[in-house]
Protein backbone atom coordinates (compact mmCIF):
# COMPACT_ATOMS: atom_id res chain seq x y z
CA UNK A 1 0.00 0.00 0.00
CA UNK A 2 2.69 2.47 1.02
CA UNK A 3 4.68 1.33 -1.99
CA UNK A 4 1.83 2.19 -4.34
CA UNK A 5 1.39 5.59 -2.75
CA UNK A 6 5.10 6.35 -2.91
CA UNK A 7 5.25 5.32 -6.56
CA UNK A 8 2.45 7.69 -7.34
CA UNK A 9 3.86 10.44 -5.14
CA UNK A 10 7.31 10.48 -6.67
CA UNK A 11 5.92 11.09 -10.15
CA UNK A 12 5.13 14.62 -8.96
CA UNK A 13 8.54 16.26 -9.13
CA UNK A 14 7.49 19.43 -7.32
CA UNK A 15 6.14 17.37 -4.43
CA UNK A 16 9.40 15.44 -4.19
CA UNK A 17 11.33 18.72 -4.20
CA UNK A 18 9.07 19.97 -1.43
CA UNK A 19 9.78 16.86 0.61
CA UNK A 20 13.53 17.40 0.20
CA UNK A 21 13.30 21.04 1.31
CA UNK A 22 11.25 20.02 4.34
CA UNK A 23 13.80 17.37 5.28
CA UNK A 24 16.68 19.84 5.03
CA UNK A 25 14.85 22.48 7.06
CA UNK A 26 13.84 19.93 9.70
CA UNK A 27 17.44 18.72 10.02
CA UNK A 28 18.65 22.29 10.31
CA UNK A 29 16.09 22.94 13.03
CA UNK A 30 17.03 19.73 14.83
CA UNK A 31 20.75 20.47 14.81
CA UNK A 32 20.47 24.25 15.25
CA UNK A 33 22.53 24.25 18.48
CA UNK A 34 25.35 22.40 16.70
CA UNK A 35 25.48 24.22 13.38
CA UNK A 36 24.65 27.80 14.28
CA UNK A 37 27.79 29.96 14.24
CA UNK A 38 26.83 32.25 17.14
CA UNK A 39 24.63 32.41 20.24
CA UNK A 40 21.10 33.41 19.13
CA UNK A 41 20.72 36.00 21.89
CA UNK A 42 24.32 37.25 22.08
CA UNK A 43 24.29 41.02 21.70
CA UNK A 44 27.23 42.76 20.03
CA UNK A 45 26.88 46.55 20.24
CA UNK A 46 29.94 47.11 18.04
CA UNK A 47 28.44 45.19 15.16
CA UNK A 48 24.83 46.30 14.79
CA UNK A 49 22.96 46.19 11.48
CA UNK A 50 25.98 45.05 9.51
CA UNK A 51 25.29 43.82 6.00
CA UNK A 52 25.84 40.18 5.00
CA UNK A 53 29.55 39.39 4.95
CA UNK A 54 31.99 36.53 5.49
CA UNK A 55 31.69 37.01 9.23
CA UNK A 56 27.88 37.15 9.35
CA UNK A 57 26.53 35.38 6.29
CA UNK A 58 23.10 36.97 6.57
CA UNK A 59 24.11 40.11 8.46
CA UNK A 60 23.21 41.23 11.97
CA UNK A 61 20.14 42.87 13.49
CA UNK A 62 19.75 46.09 15.45
CA UNK A 63 21.32 44.50 18.54
CA UNK A 64 24.21 42.95 16.64
CA UNK A 65 22.79 39.43 16.81
CA UNK A 66 23.65 37.08 13.95
CA UNK A 67 20.63 36.75 11.64
CA UNK A 68 21.55 33.29 10.33
CA UNK A 69 21.77 31.94 13.88
CA UNK A 70 18.48 33.50 14.84
CA UNK A 71 16.83 32.07 11.75
CA UNK A 72 18.12 28.58 12.53
CA UNK A 73 16.76 28.79 16.06
CA UNK A 74 13.61 30.43 14.74
CA UNK A 75 12.97 27.44 12.49
CA UNK A 76 12.63 25.26 15.60
CA UNK A 77 9.90 27.50 16.94
CA UNK A 78 8.07 27.85 13.63
CA UNK A 79 8.06 24.11 12.97
CA UNK A 80 7.04 23.25 16.53
CA UNK A 81 4.19 25.73 16.43
CA UNK A 82 3.12 24.38 13.04
CA UNK A 83 3.04 20.75 14.15
CA UNK A 84 1.55 21.17 17.60
CA UNK A 85 -1.12 23.60 16.40
CA UNK A 86 -2.13 21.21 13.64
CA UNK A 87 -2.07 18.30 16.09
CA UNK A 88 -4.54 20.16 18.30
CA UNK A 89 -6.72 21.18 15.36
CA UNK A 90 -6.84 17.64 14.02
CA UNK A 91 -7.68 16.12 17.38
CA UNK A 92 -10.57 18.52 17.88
CA UNK A 93 -11.67 18.14 14.27
CA UNK A 94 -11.65 14.34 14.42
CA UNK A 95 -13.50 14.29 17.73
CA UNK A 96 -16.23 16.69 16.64
CA UNK A 97 -16.46 15.30 13.11
CA UNK A 98 -16.78 11.69 14.31
CA UNK A 99 -19.41 12.49 16.91
CA UNK A 100 -21.43 14.55 14.43
CA UNK A 101 -21.15 12.03 11.62
CA UNK A 102 -21.66 8.91 13.68
CA UNK A 103 -24.55 10.00 15.86
CA UNK A 104 -26.26 12.32 13.39
CA UNK A 105 -29.58 13.95 14.25
CA UNK A 106 -29.63 16.78 16.74
CA UNK A 107 -26.04 16.37 17.90
CA UNK A 108 -24.89 16.57 14.31
CA UNK A 109 -27.03 19.64 13.73
CA UNK A 110 -25.74 21.37 16.83
CA UNK A 111 -22.08 20.65 16.12
CA UNK A 112 -22.33 21.69 12.48
CA UNK A 113 -23.97 24.96 13.49
CA UNK A 114 -20.99 25.48 15.81
CA UNK A 115 -18.73 24.96 12.80
CA UNK A 116 -20.76 27.50 10.79
CA UNK A 117 -20.49 30.02 13.59
CA UNK A 118 -16.76 29.53 13.97
CA UNK A 119 -16.29 29.96 10.21
CA UNK A 120 -18.01 33.35 10.34
CA UNK A 121 -15.22 34.80 12.42
CA UNK A 122 -12.27 36.20 10.55
CA UNK A 123 -9.71 33.78 12.02
CA UNK A 124 -7.13 36.43 12.67
CA UNK A 125 -9.66 38.49 14.66
CA UNK A 126 -10.55 35.50 16.82
CA UNK A 127 -6.90 34.67 17.47
CA UNK A 128 -6.09 38.26 18.38
CA UNK A 129 -9.06 38.45 20.73
CA UNK A 130 -7.87 35.38 22.62
CA UNK A 131 -4.30 36.60 22.71
CA UNK A 132 -5.55 39.89 24.17
CA UNK A 133 -6.87 38.08 27.23
CA UNK A 134 -4.35 35.33 27.91
CA UNK A 135 -0.69 35.41 28.70
CA UNK A 136 1.40 35.60 25.57
CA UNK A 137 3.67 32.61 25.07
CA UNK A 138 4.59 30.00 22.50
CA UNK A 139 2.21 27.43 24.00
CA UNK A 140 -0.65 29.94 23.95
CA UNK A 141 -0.04 30.58 20.26
CA UNK A 142 -0.11 26.87 19.46
CA UNK A 143 -3.30 26.29 21.41
CA UNK A 144 -5.04 29.33 19.97
CA UNK A 145 -4.14 28.48 16.38
CA UNK A 146 -5.25 24.89 17.01
CA UNK A 147 -8.58 25.94 18.49
CA UNK A 148 -9.37 28.24 15.59
CA UNK A 149 -8.53 25.93 12.70
CA UNK A 150 -10.27 22.59 13.34
CA UNK A 151 -13.43 23.32 11.36
CA UNK A 152 -12.34 22.01 7.97
CA UNK A 153 -11.06 18.76 9.46
CA UNK A 154 -14.30 18.18 11.32
CA UNK A 155 -16.28 18.65 8.11
CA UNK A 156 -14.00 16.25 6.25
CA UNK A 157 -14.21 13.58 8.93
CA UNK A 158 -17.96 13.95 9.21
CA UNK A 159 -18.40 13.55 5.46
CA UNK A 160 -16.17 10.47 5.40
CA UNK A 161 -17.97 8.90 8.33
CA UNK A 162 -21.38 9.52 6.79
CA UNK A 163 -20.37 7.47 3.76
CA UNK A 164 -18.63 4.78 5.79
CA UNK A 165 -21.00 4.11 8.64
CA UNK A 166 -23.57 2.16 6.63
CA UNK A 167 -20.97 -0.02 4.97
CA UNK A 168 -20.98 -3.76 5.57
CA UNK A 169 -17.75 -3.95 7.55
CA UNK A 170 -19.10 -1.45 10.05
CA UNK A 171 -22.35 -3.36 10.39
CA UNK A 172 -20.28 -6.51 10.86
CA UNK A 173 -18.23 -4.90 13.61
CA UNK A 174 -21.44 -3.81 15.32
CA UNK A 175 -22.96 -7.25 14.93
CA UNK A 176 -20.11 -8.86 16.83
CA UNK A 177 -20.82 -6.47 19.68
CA UNK A 178 -18.23 -3.70 19.33
CA UNK A 179 -19.24 -0.57 21.23
CA UNK A 180 -19.51 2.85 19.56
CA UNK A 181 -16.04 3.96 20.53
CA UNK A 182 -14.47 0.81 19.15
CA UNK A 183 -16.46 0.99 15.93
CA UNK A 184 -15.41 4.59 15.36
CA UNK A 185 -11.82 4.33 16.47
CA UNK A 186 -10.88 0.92 15.05
CA UNK A 187 -13.12 0.44 12.05
CA UNK A 188 -14.28 3.78 10.67
CA UNK A 189 -11.53 6.31 11.39
CA UNK A 190 -8.63 4.40 9.82
CA UNK A 191 -10.58 4.41 6.57
CA UNK A 192 -11.36 8.10 6.83
CA UNK A 193 -7.89 9.39 7.58
CA UNK A 194 -6.31 10.06 4.20
CA UNK A 195 -8.11 13.37 3.55
CA UNK A 196 -7.30 14.38 7.12
CA UNK A 197 -3.66 13.65 6.50
CA UNK A 198 -3.66 15.83 3.41
CA UNK A 199 -5.48 18.59 5.21
CA UNK A 200 -2.94 18.38 8.06
CA UNK A 201 -0.08 18.97 5.65
CA UNK A 202 -1.74 22.11 4.33
CA UNK A 203 -2.56 22.97 7.93
CA UNK A 204 1.11 23.01 8.95
CA UNK A 205 1.76 25.49 6.15
CA UNK A 206 -1.11 27.67 7.32
CA UNK A 207 -0.10 27.54 10.97
CA UNK A 208 3.47 28.57 10.17
CA UNK A 209 2.12 31.53 8.20
CA UNK A 210 -0.22 32.51 11.02
CA UNK A 211 2.51 32.27 13.64
CA UNK A 212 4.86 34.41 11.59
CA UNK A 213 2.12 37.00 11.11
CA UNK A 214 1.38 37.09 14.83
CA UNK A 215 5.04 37.31 15.76
CA UNK A 216 5.46 40.05 13.19
CA UNK A 217 2.75 42.05 14.95
CA UNK A 218 4.51 41.45 18.27
CA UNK A 219 1.67 39.20 19.45
CA UNK A 220 3.35 35.85 18.90
CA UNK A 221 6.75 34.63 19.97
CA UNK A 222 8.16 37.17 22.41
CA UNK A 223 11.71 38.48 21.92
CA UNK A 224 14.46 37.66 22.77
CA UNK A 225 13.25 34.23 21.58
CA UNK A 226 13.86 34.29 17.84
CA UNK A 227 11.17 33.53 15.30
CA UNK A 228 10.99 34.22 11.59
CA UNK A 229 8.12 36.59 12.22
CA UNK A 230 9.79 38.71 14.85
CA UNK A 231 13.01 39.05 12.86
CA UNK A 232 10.79 40.55 10.16
CA UNK A 233 9.56 43.05 12.74
CA UNK A 234 13.12 44.34 13.11
CA UNK A 235 13.22 44.34 9.32
CA UNK A 236 10.24 46.68 9.28
CA UNK A 237 11.71 48.93 11.97
CA UNK A 238 14.96 49.23 10.03
CA UNK A 239 13.38 49.18 6.61
CA UNK A 240 15.43 52.02 5.17
CA UNK A 241 18.83 50.68 6.25
CA UNK A 242 18.80 46.89 6.53
CA UNK A 243 17.11 45.04 3.66
CA UNK A 244 18.65 41.72 4.76
CA UNK A 245 16.53 41.69 7.90
CA UNK A 246 13.41 41.72 5.73
CA UNK A 247 14.48 39.50 2.86
CA UNK A 248 15.96 36.33 4.41
CA UNK A 249 13.44 35.41 7.10
CA UNK A 250 10.64 35.98 4.58
CA UNK A 251 12.33 33.66 2.10
CA UNK A 252 12.64 31.04 4.84
CA UNK A 253 8.90 31.27 5.54
CA UNK A 254 8.07 31.24 1.84
CA UNK A 255 10.15 28.14 1.10
CA UNK A 256 8.95 26.20 4.13
CA UNK A 257 5.30 26.99 3.55
CA UNK A 258 5.61 26.39 -0.18
CA UNK A 259 7.17 22.98 0.46
CA UNK A 260 4.38 21.91 2.80
CA UNK A 261 1.80 23.05 0.27
CA UNK A 262 3.53 21.13 -2.53
CA UNK A 263 3.78 18.01 -0.38
CA UNK A 264 0.11 18.37 0.52
CA UNK A 265 -0.86 18.60 -3.14
CA UNK A 266 1.32 15.58 -3.97
CA UNK A 267 -0.20 13.56 -1.15
CA UNK A 268 -3.71 14.49 -2.19
CA UNK A 269 -3.15 13.09 -5.67
CA UNK A 270 -1.23 10.06 -4.41
CA UNK A 271 -3.82 9.15 -1.78
CA UNK A 272 -6.89 9.63 -3.92
CA UNK A 273 -7.91 6.16 -5.14
CA UNK A 274 -10.23 7.68 -7.71
CA UNK A 275 -7.19 8.94 -9.59
CA UNK A 276 -5.36 5.60 -9.48
CA UNK A 277 -7.18 3.89 -12.27
CA UNK A 278 -7.05 6.78 -14.71
CA UNK A 279 -3.26 6.74 -14.88
CA UNK A 280 -2.70 3.07 -15.37
Amino acid sequence: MIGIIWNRYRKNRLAVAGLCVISVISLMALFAPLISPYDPTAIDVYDVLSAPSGKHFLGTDELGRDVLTRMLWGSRISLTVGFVAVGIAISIGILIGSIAGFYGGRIDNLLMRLVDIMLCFPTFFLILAVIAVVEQSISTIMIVIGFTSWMDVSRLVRAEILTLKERDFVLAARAVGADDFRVIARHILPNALSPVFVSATFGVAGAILTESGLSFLGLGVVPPDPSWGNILTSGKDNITVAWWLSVFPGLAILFTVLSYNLVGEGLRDALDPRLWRSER
Partner: protein
Amino acid sequence: MVPLIFGITLISFLVIHLAPGGPVEVETEMSMKASAQARDNLKKLYGLDKPLHEQYIDWLGRFVMLDFGKSFVDGKDVIDKISERVPITLTINILALILTFCVAVPIGVMSAIRQFSLFDKLTTLFVFIGYSTPHFWLALLCMILFGVNLGWLPISGIQSLDVSGMSFAERVLDLAKHLILPVGISAFGAMAGLSRYSRSSMLEVIRQDYIRTARAKGLKERQVILRHALRNALMPVITILGLAIPGLIGGSVIFESIFSIPGLGQLFYQSTLSRDYPTIMGILVIGALLTLIGNMIADLAYAIADPRIRVGAE
Protein backbone atom coordinates in the same frame (compact mmCIF):
# COMPACT_ATOMS: atom_id res chain seq x y z
CA MET B 1 -29.58 33.44 10.52
CA VAL B 2 -30.71 34.45 14.01
CA PRO B 3 -29.15 31.38 15.71
CA LEU B 4 -25.91 32.16 13.90
CA ILE B 5 -25.88 35.75 15.16
CA PHE B 6 -26.69 34.52 18.64
CA GLY B 7 -23.85 32.00 18.46
CA ILE B 8 -21.46 34.66 17.21
CA THR B 9 -22.22 36.92 20.17
CA LEU B 10 -21.98 34.04 22.64
CA ILE B 11 -18.59 32.88 21.39
CA SER B 12 -17.22 36.44 21.28
CA PHE B 13 -18.39 36.96 24.83
CA LEU B 14 -17.00 33.69 26.16
CA VAL B 15 -13.62 34.13 24.48
CA ILE B 16 -13.10 37.43 26.18
CA HIS B 17 -14.55 36.71 29.59
CA LEU B 18 -13.28 33.24 30.40
CA ALA B 19 -9.69 34.40 30.47
CA PRO B 20 -7.90 35.46 33.61
CA GLY B 21 -6.66 39.01 34.00
CA GLY B 22 -9.23 41.65 33.11
CA PRO B 23 -9.07 45.27 32.10
CA VAL B 24 -8.84 46.19 35.77
CA GLU B 25 -5.54 44.36 36.11
CA VAL B 26 -4.24 46.15 33.05
CA GLU B 27 -5.32 49.52 34.34
CA THR B 28 -3.88 49.00 37.81
CA GLU B 29 -0.72 47.09 37.01
CA MET B 30 0.99 50.33 36.07
CA SER B 31 0.48 51.81 39.52
CA MET B 32 1.44 49.58 42.42
CA LYS B 33 -0.38 51.92 44.78
CA ALA B 34 -3.83 50.95 43.52
CA SER B 35 -5.55 49.46 46.52
CA ALA B 36 -7.92 46.50 46.58
CA GLN B 37 -10.71 48.99 47.21
CA ALA B 38 -9.83 50.97 44.09
CA ARG B 39 -9.78 47.78 42.05
CA ASP B 40 -13.23 46.81 43.26
CA ASN B 41 -14.54 50.23 42.37
CA LEU B 42 -13.15 49.91 38.88
CA LYS B 43 -14.69 46.44 38.52
CA LYS B 44 -18.07 47.77 39.58
CA LEU B 45 -17.74 50.63 37.14
CA TYR B 46 -17.26 48.20 34.25
CA GLY B 47 -19.85 45.74 35.55
CA LEU B 48 -17.22 43.03 35.89
CA ASP B 49 -18.30 42.14 39.45
CA LYS B 50 -21.52 40.48 38.32
CA PRO B 51 -21.75 36.76 37.49
CA LEU B 52 -20.85 35.87 33.91
CA HIS B 53 -24.32 35.04 32.64
CA GLU B 54 -25.71 38.33 33.94
CA GLN B 55 -22.92 40.22 32.24
CA TYR B 56 -23.77 38.40 29.00
CA ILE B 57 -27.48 39.13 29.22
CA ASP B 58 -26.75 42.77 30.00
CA TRP B 59 -24.41 42.95 27.07
CA LEU B 60 -26.79 41.15 24.71
CA GLY B 61 -29.61 43.51 25.69
CA ARG B 62 -27.44 46.46 24.76
CA PHE B 63 -26.14 44.69 21.66
CA VAL B 64 -29.64 44.56 20.19
CA MET B 65 -29.64 48.35 20.42
CA LEU B 66 -26.17 48.39 18.79
CA ASP B 67 -24.71 49.69 22.04
CA PHE B 68 -21.39 47.97 22.63
CA GLY B 69 -20.57 50.09 25.64
CA LYS B 70 -17.75 52.56 26.02
CA SER B 71 -14.11 52.00 25.23
CA PHE B 72 -11.89 51.41 28.25
CA VAL B 73 -9.20 53.50 26.61
CA ASP B 74 -10.80 56.82 25.81
CA GLY B 75 -14.39 56.49 27.00
CA LYS B 76 -15.86 56.94 23.53
CA ASP B 77 -18.81 54.81 22.40
CA VAL B 78 -17.47 51.63 20.82
CA ILE B 79 -20.03 51.75 18.03
CA ASP B 80 -18.81 55.24 17.06
CA LYS B 81 -15.18 54.15 17.07
CA ILE B 82 -16.07 51.19 14.87
CA SER B 83 -18.29 53.05 12.43
CA GLU B 84 -15.53 55.63 11.90
CA ARG B 85 -13.25 52.83 10.78
CA VAL B 86 -15.51 50.48 8.82
CA PRO B 87 -15.73 52.56 5.61
CA ILE B 88 -11.95 52.59 5.13
CA THR B 89 -11.58 48.85 5.65
CA LEU B 90 -14.61 48.08 3.49
CA THR B 91 -13.36 50.32 0.69
CA ILE B 92 -9.98 48.62 0.65
CA ASN B 93 -11.50 45.16 0.80
CA ILE B 94 -14.08 45.80 -1.90
CA LEU B 95 -11.42 47.27 -4.18
CA ALA B 96 -9.25 44.25 -3.43
CA LEU B 97 -12.13 41.88 -4.23
CA ILE B 98 -12.82 43.63 -7.53
CA LEU B 99 -9.14 43.55 -8.46
CA THR B 100 -8.91 39.89 -7.46
CA PHE B 101 -11.90 39.03 -9.58
CA CYS B 102 -10.67 40.96 -12.62
CA VAL B 103 -7.24 39.36 -12.57
CA ALA B 104 -7.83 35.90 -11.16
CA VAL B 105 -10.79 34.83 -13.29
CA PRO B 106 -9.16 35.55 -16.68
CA ILE B 107 -5.99 33.81 -15.50
CA GLY B 108 -7.94 30.77 -14.34
CA VAL B 109 -10.04 30.60 -17.48
CA MET B 110 -7.03 30.99 -19.77
CA SER B 111 -5.09 28.26 -18.05
CA ALA B 112 -8.10 25.95 -18.20
CA ILE B 113 -8.55 26.50 -21.94
CA ARG B 114 -4.88 25.76 -22.48
CA GLN B 115 -4.53 22.99 -19.97
CA PHE B 116 -0.97 21.62 -19.68
CA SER B 117 0.47 24.52 -21.70
CA LEU B 118 3.41 26.56 -20.47
CA PHE B 119 1.01 29.30 -19.38
CA ASP B 120 -0.96 26.77 -17.35
CA LYS B 121 2.18 25.45 -15.66
CA LEU B 122 3.44 28.93 -14.86
CA THR B 123 0.14 29.99 -13.34
CA THR B 124 0.02 26.80 -11.28
CA LEU B 125 3.42 27.68 -9.86
CA PHE B 126 2.25 31.26 -9.30
CA VAL B 127 -0.77 29.95 -7.43
CA PHE B 128 1.40 27.90 -5.08
CA ILE B 129 3.75 30.79 -4.46
CA GLY B 130 0.77 33.07 -3.90
CA TYR B 131 -0.63 30.65 -1.34
CA SER B 132 2.70 30.38 0.45
CA THR B 133 3.90 33.97 0.55
CA PRO B 134 3.50 35.72 3.88
CA HIS B 135 1.63 38.76 2.63
CA PHE B 136 3.02 41.06 5.25
CA TRP B 137 6.46 40.13 3.99
CA LEU B 138 5.46 40.92 0.42
CA ALA B 139 4.19 44.24 1.73
CA LEU B 140 7.56 44.89 3.37
CA LEU B 141 9.44 44.08 0.15
CA CYS B 142 7.15 46.33 -1.88
CA MET B 143 7.63 49.11 0.65
CA ILE B 144 11.41 48.76 0.36
CA LEU B 145 11.28 48.66 -3.44
CA PHE B 146 8.60 51.23 -4.34
CA GLY B 147 8.68 53.38 -1.23
CA VAL B 148 12.29 53.49 -0.11
CA ASN B 149 14.44 52.69 -3.13
CA LEU B 150 12.36 54.06 -6.00
CA GLY B 151 10.37 56.57 -3.98
CA TRP B 152 7.31 56.16 -6.23
CA LEU B 153 4.70 55.41 -3.61
CA PRO B 154 4.06 56.59 -0.06
CA ILE B 155 4.54 53.82 2.50
CA SER B 156 2.10 54.76 5.23
CA GLY B 157 -1.29 56.26 5.91
CA ILE B 158 -4.07 56.95 3.43
CA GLN B 159 -3.34 60.60 2.74
CA SER B 160 -0.40 62.96 2.59
CA LEU B 161 0.24 65.50 5.34
CA ASP B 162 -0.49 68.47 3.09
CA VAL B 163 -3.79 67.05 1.88
CA SER B 164 -5.83 70.06 3.00
CA GLY B 165 -4.19 72.33 0.43
CA MET B 166 -4.98 70.05 -2.51
CA SER B 167 -7.69 70.29 -5.11
CA PHE B 168 -10.25 67.49 -5.39
CA ALA B 169 -8.47 65.79 -8.27
CA GLU B 170 -5.16 65.92 -6.42
CA ARG B 171 -6.79 64.40 -3.37
CA VAL B 172 -8.19 61.52 -5.36
CA LEU B 173 -4.79 60.92 -6.92
CA ASP B 174 -3.17 61.14 -3.50
CA LEU B 175 -5.61 58.60 -2.07
CA ALA B 176 -5.09 56.30 -5.04
CA LYS B 177 -1.33 56.41 -4.59
CA HIS B 178 -1.69 55.48 -0.94
CA LEU B 179 -4.08 52.65 -1.70
CA ILE B 180 -2.15 50.94 -4.51
CA LEU B 181 0.08 48.86 -2.26
CA PRO B 182 -2.48 47.84 0.38
CA VAL B 183 -5.16 46.96 -2.18
CA GLY B 184 -2.73 45.28 -4.56
CA ILE B 185 -1.16 43.11 -1.92
CA SER B 186 -4.36 42.04 -0.22
CA ALA B 187 -5.75 41.17 -3.64
CA PHE B 188 -2.63 39.13 -4.37
CA GLY B 189 -3.42 36.89 -1.44
CA ALA B 190 -6.94 36.13 -2.60
CA MET B 191 -5.93 35.82 -6.26
CA ALA B 192 -4.13 32.51 -5.90
CA GLY B 193 -7.15 30.70 -4.54
CA LEU B 194 -9.63 32.29 -6.90
CA SER B 195 -7.65 31.67 -10.06
CA ARG B 196 -7.15 28.04 -9.07
CA TYR B 197 -10.82 27.75 -8.43
CA SER B 198 -11.91 29.35 -11.69
CA ARG B 199 -9.50 27.05 -13.51
CA SER B 200 -11.01 23.88 -12.11
CA SER B 201 -14.54 25.20 -12.53
CA MET B 202 -13.82 26.04 -16.17
CA LEU B 203 -12.17 22.65 -16.74
CA GLU B 204 -15.29 20.96 -15.50
CA VAL B 205 -17.58 23.05 -17.68
CA ILE B 206 -15.70 22.66 -20.97
CA ARG B 207 -16.07 18.90 -20.70
CA GLN B 208 -19.86 19.14 -20.60
CA ASP B 209 -22.09 17.92 -23.37
CA TYR B 210 -23.59 21.33 -24.08
CA ILE B 211 -20.13 22.69 -24.90
CA ARG B 212 -19.60 19.85 -27.33
CA THR B 213 -23.02 20.65 -28.79
CA ALA B 214 -22.09 24.30 -29.17
CA ARG B 215 -18.89 23.35 -30.95
CA ALA B 216 -20.70 20.78 -33.06
CA LYS B 217 -23.13 23.32 -34.40
CA GLY B 218 -20.15 25.25 -35.71
CA LEU B 219 -19.86 28.17 -33.31
CA LYS B 220 -16.55 29.95 -33.15
CA GLU B 221 -14.35 28.84 -30.27
CA ARG B 222 -14.44 32.37 -28.88
CA GLN B 223 -18.21 32.30 -28.77
CA VAL B 224 -18.28 28.86 -27.18
CA ILE B 225 -15.98 29.96 -24.38
CA LEU B 226 -17.39 33.42 -23.72
CA ARG B 227 -21.09 32.74 -24.22
CA HIS B 228 -21.57 29.15 -23.20
CA ALA B 229 -18.77 28.14 -20.89
CA LEU B 230 -17.85 31.28 -18.98
CA ARG B 231 -21.20 32.02 -17.45
CA ASN B 232 -21.60 28.51 -16.12
CA ALA B 233 -18.04 28.38 -14.89
CA LEU B 234 -18.37 31.66 -13.01
CA MET B 235 -21.29 30.63 -10.87
CA PRO B 236 -19.37 28.60 -8.29
CA VAL B 237 -16.70 31.31 -8.30
CA ILE B 238 -19.23 33.76 -6.87
CA THR B 239 -19.56 31.59 -3.77
CA ILE B 240 -15.80 31.52 -3.36
CA LEU B 241 -15.72 35.31 -3.46
CA GLY B 242 -18.08 35.22 -0.47
CA LEU B 243 -15.81 32.78 1.32
CA ALA B 244 -12.81 35.05 0.72
CA ILE B 245 -14.36 37.81 2.84
CA PRO B 246 -13.31 36.61 6.32
CA GLY B 247 -9.76 36.18 5.07
CA LEU B 248 -9.70 39.70 3.68
CA ILE B 249 -11.21 41.26 6.79
CA GLY B 250 -8.91 39.27 9.06
CA GLY B 251 -5.93 40.16 6.89
CA SER B 252 -6.72 43.83 7.36
CA VAL B 253 -5.19 43.62 10.85
CA ILE B 254 -1.73 43.04 9.40
CA PHE B 255 -2.04 45.32 6.37
CA GLU B 256 -3.44 48.22 8.28
CA SER B 257 -0.74 48.05 10.91
CA ILE B 258 2.02 47.79 8.29
CA PHE B 259 0.73 50.69 6.21
CA SER B 260 -0.64 52.66 9.21
CA ILE B 261 -4.13 52.75 7.71
CA PRO B 262 -6.72 53.93 10.23
CA GLY B 263 -9.18 51.10 9.57
CA LEU B 264 -10.97 48.42 11.54
CA GLY B 265 -7.95 46.11 11.59
CA GLN B 266 -5.66 48.74 13.07
CA LEU B 267 -8.26 49.60 15.70
CA PHE B 268 -8.51 45.92 16.56
CA TYR B 269 -4.75 45.62 16.86
CA GLN B 270 -4.54 48.65 19.13
CA SER B 271 -7.44 47.39 21.23
CA THR B 272 -5.74 44.02 21.59
CA LEU B 273 -2.59 45.67 22.88
CA SER B 274 -4.51 47.78 25.39
CA ARG B 275 -6.99 44.98 26.23
CA ASP B 276 -9.89 47.25 25.47
CA TYR B 277 -12.54 44.53 25.92
CA PRO B 278 -15.67 46.38 24.78
CA THR B 279 -13.96 47.44 21.57
CA ILE B 280 -12.48 43.98 20.95
CA MET B 281 -15.87 42.39 21.44
CA GLY B 282 -17.59 44.97 19.25
CA ILE B 283 -15.15 44.47 16.37
CA LEU B 284 -15.22 40.69 16.72
CA VAL B 285 -19.01 40.68 16.40
CA ILE B 286 -19.07 43.26 13.61
CA GLY B 287 -16.36 41.39 11.70
CA ALA B 288 -18.36 38.16 11.93
CA LEU B 289 -21.57 39.91 10.91
CA LEU B 290 -19.84 41.46 7.89
CA THR B 291 -18.75 37.96 6.91
CA LEU B 292 -22.28 36.67 7.35
CA ILE B 293 -23.66 39.50 5.20
CA GLY B 294 -20.98 38.84 2.58
CA ASN B 295 -21.94 35.18 2.42
CA MET B 296 -25.61 36.07 2.10
CA ILE B 297 -24.87 38.45 -0.77
CA ALA B 298 -22.86 35.68 -2.43
CA ASP B 299 -25.77 33.25 -2.00
CA LEU B 300 -28.20 35.75 -3.48
CA ALA B 301 -25.87 36.52 -6.38
CA TYR B 302 -25.58 32.80 -6.99
CA ALA B 303 -29.33 32.45 -7.05
CA ILE B 304 -29.65 35.31 -9.52
CA ALA B 305 -26.93 33.92 -11.78
CA ASP B 306 -28.14 30.33 -11.71
CA PRO B 307 -31.73 29.83 -12.74
CA ARG B 308 -31.68 26.31 -11.28
CA ILE B 309 -31.42 27.74 -7.79
CA ARG B 310 -34.09 30.21 -6.85
CA VAL B 311 -34.71 31.38 -3.32
CA GLY B 312 -37.82 29.75 -1.98
CA ALA B 313 -38.36 27.69 -5.12
CA GLU B 314 -39.24 24.04 -4.82
